[in-house]
């Protein structure tokens, strides 16, 4: 008897533990995403172990990652462009050492290397040197690079996390890419989804409704990678031919595909909401002489509005977080979107495409976790809003 009771209590306490498990899990996920990514904010965007040095008479003491990239790529050729004296910029790094100095000057064991580098930097006023820290004499004027901050990431317009010497971590084009594709998807899916939901809930008969609903539920279960494959084979060439584009992998292809993927969610949830309108209300409206159409638009839809809004928001969430399908059809170019006929890159696709190449603990890896955290925050808010409306 007592043994039985102990057993029951034991199982009940296991039940209590399981109940709290999910809450702990979500907190754990948040903590881990930020923990893995937060190391980024103590780092400088310059490759680890490297430093930048200039001539002592150079007035420039600080550069942004974008400026460094401009200098290396030859877009910035004069110090006056970054706030210094009027003097053209020479870049100087390890690969130039052999052409600038002879073997004799450097010594057999390269014992004079540091000396020579320092000499060269001090004798050329326009030099921009990029070397491993150990080759740079401590007497040289080093360029400071600001630490990476969240706001610099959010404002940055370029995403080249592996660029050398300074990683470009601007996530603005990626976030806008996600929003843009999702926006297009909702523009397509929302009207269509609502019309189908109204038709199923109010217009067609029960038999047809059950058939269509089970087909739609079936479609909701199809893996997104299958949708992505379908998009790659059918939608991408179709978009390319219809609009006569150089490539079919565009924001439009992504939006069409995401619309297809989020339609089942929007349809079945809004259909539930519309069906929940009490028959009494509808009968009252019909008894007052309104026809079915008027009843739908003046009675059922207003009654179901909070449910419909919540369904639409969940559809947005589904589209926003979709990974494989957009990875396969949007072309993945990290540029700020300016139209539906250009390739875009979304947050999800960036993570999926790049995480495999990023070494654990590197700037790139941590930046991808910050992107994941941003994605998490977005969807968390979307879910909270949806929940708010569904309880209204």
């Amino acid at each position, binding site marked *: 008897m007592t043994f039985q009771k102990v057993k029951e209590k034991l199982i009940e306490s296991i039940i209590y533990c399981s109940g709290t498990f999910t809450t702990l899990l979500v907190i754990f996920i948040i903590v881990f995403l930020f923990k893995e990514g937060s190391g980024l904010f103590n780092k400088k965007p310059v490759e680890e172990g490297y430093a930048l040095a200039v001539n002592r008479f150079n007035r420039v003491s600080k550069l942004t990652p974008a400026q460094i990239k401009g200098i290396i790529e030859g877009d910035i050729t004069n110090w006056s462009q970054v706030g210094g004296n009027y003097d053209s910029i020479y870049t100087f790094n390890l690969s130039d050492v052999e052409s600038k100095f002879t073997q004799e000057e450097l010594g057999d064991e390269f014992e004079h290397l540091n000396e020579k580098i320092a000499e060269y930097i001090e004798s050329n006023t326009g030099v921009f040197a990029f070397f491993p820290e150990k080759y740079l004499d401590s007497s040289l004027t080093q360029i400071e690079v600001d630490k990476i901050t969240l706001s610099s990431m959010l404002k940055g317009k370029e995403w080249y996390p592996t660029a050398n010497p300074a990683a470009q971590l601007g996530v603005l084009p990626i976030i806008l890419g996600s929003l843009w594709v999702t926006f297009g998807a909702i523009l397509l899916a929302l009207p269509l989804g609502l019309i189908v939901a109204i038709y199923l809930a109010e217009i067609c008969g029960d038999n047809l409704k059950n058939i269509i609903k089970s087909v739609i539920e079936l479609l909701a*279960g199809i893996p997104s990678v299958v949708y992505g494959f379908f998009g790659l084979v059918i939608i991408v060439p179709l978009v390319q031919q219809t609009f006569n584009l150089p490539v079919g992998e565009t924001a439009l292809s992504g939006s069409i595909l995401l619309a297809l993927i989020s339609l089942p969610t929007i349809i079945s949830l809004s259909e539930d909401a519309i069906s929940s309108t009490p028959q009494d209300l509808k009968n009252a409206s019909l008894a007052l002489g309104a026809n079915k159409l008027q009843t739908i638009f003046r009675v059922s839809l207003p009654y179901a509005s909070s449910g419909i809004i919540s369904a639409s928001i969940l559809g947005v969430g589904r589209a926003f977080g979709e990974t494989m399908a957009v990875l396969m059809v949007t072309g993945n170019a990290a540029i700020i979107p300016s139209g539906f006929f250009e390739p875009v890159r979304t947050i999800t696709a960036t993570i999926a495409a790049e995480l495999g190449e990023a070494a654990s603990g590197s700037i790139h890896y941590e930046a991808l976790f910050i992107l994941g955290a941003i994605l998490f925050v977005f969807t968390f808010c979307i879910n909270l809003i949806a929940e708010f409306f569904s309880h209204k």
Partner: protein
Amino acid sequence: MNKNLKEKLIFSLFGAVTALVVLVTVAILVFIIFRGIGQISWDFISKAPENGMMEGGIFPAIMGTLLLITGSCVLAFPIGVLSGIFMNEYAHENAFKRIVTMMTSNLAGIPSIVFGLFGLALFVNFFKMGVSLMAGCCTLAILVLPVIIRTTEEALKQIDDTYRFSGYALGTSKFKTVFGIILPMAMPNIITGLILSIGRVAGETAPIIFTVAAYYLSEISFSLQSPVMALPYHLYVMATSGIDLEKSRSIAFGTALILMSIVLIMNLLVGGVKRFYSK
């Protein structure tokens, strides 16, 4: 009669839109089946990929997906069903229950790629499991957990309170009432929920890319420490590989069909279970 004419017009327009949407979505199904069916043969499902994956079958990927399904369900079912029981039978209507409900629905809304990141950070790197079957199963288990909790909770909610009160009136303990009366009654709906979650696990790609999926393996390993091939990842690889488009596409169509049939079979099973219990 003007308003009735308008009604007719709009209703037929709505009907047409519905027909269009249903047609387009069904077209996806038909298209994959049509193009994939020619690829399916005994060799295709029983042999390993050959010749740089351009020939041969997809047996390792099928096995990998089955292993992932088994592993993640073994991990997620007990916790999920017990949490569902907690939510509906044991939790009181208070702030704590509201928080748990909110967290569960938020967990359900987290994009699958975030689970991939989390799985990589926690299981692969922190717990040092490496890219392995174990890490993949844990990641997928977390992903389906909210689905299982939600369906268990819904199934229990449908059981009328009179059954609970009758149990108490007869002097049985809460535990016995829940496990002896309520749970067996809710079982059919719980089982259908579990079957649907299997379909979900089978098709997830993003969470497994970094935690378990292998590009190519010639042999099947049943070790928890080694990576496995998986159908969705194999489909992704074949669909996006640029070499010999014709061959890789036909293998991709075959893989897509096999993957989709797992989901379709699960859906048919659900119908079967419902019919079996309603007898």
